[in-house]
């Protein structure tokens, strides 16, 4: 597998950060 090609693929490396932010935000709103 060419690492060069892999490097060009668009992947979401920061999903966990936004998932956490979303969860905390809506948990707070829920209260």
């Amino acid at each position, binding site marked *: 597998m060419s690492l060069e090609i892999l490097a060009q693929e668009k992947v979401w490396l*920061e999903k966990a950060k*936004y998932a956490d*932010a*979303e969860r905390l935000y*809506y*948990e707070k*709103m829920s209260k």
Partner: protein
Amino acid sequence: MASGTLYTYSNNSRAYKALIAAQYSGADVKVDPAFEFGVTNKDETFLKKFPLGKVPAFESNKKEYLTESNAIAYFVSNEQLKGSTPYEKALVQQFISYADNEILPASHAWVYPSLSVAQFNKLSVERAIEDVKGIFTYLNNYLLTRTYLVGERITLADISVACSLLQLYQHVINPEFRQPYVNVNRWFDTIVNQPKVVKVIGKFEYCVKSAEFNQ
């Protein structure tokens, strides 16, 4: 199509997909009024049914359990929403994937910092804005000659993509930004003003001034 109970917090654009689909299909889907996000989804009863503890989550009247908003929307849909021909069914899948894999990441990366829900990183936000421009350009060209994304009537493609764009149109995409994307705007406005959609999301308020990160 199934009937049952949807567990979700309010204003969850993922949950909207299933609720809007149910409006069109006539499926009887009720949101659990007692659900408290952060509490209910951590208790043992809930986790027995939905081990991941995530929402939206769906329990049918026959005690069938589902998570993942696309699956729930699919389950409560009728055949028309899923696409009328084999190719259209695949196109519906294409747009559902596009919404999750392309639109949502860009949306979160722009909207959440702007709402001060996530840390602000200038490069990340700038990249997200460029990604959103690319998305809008693509959709604008695609919708030049179309009323709906797939076929001649609303499908899960329109519902999924529109729901994935809600936060963008509501919080960060100001009139100046959206002005060039005439076809997307027309299509989106058509969707969010459908009576069955209004029943779920209420009257949609467009962004006037783009939200900005506030420490």
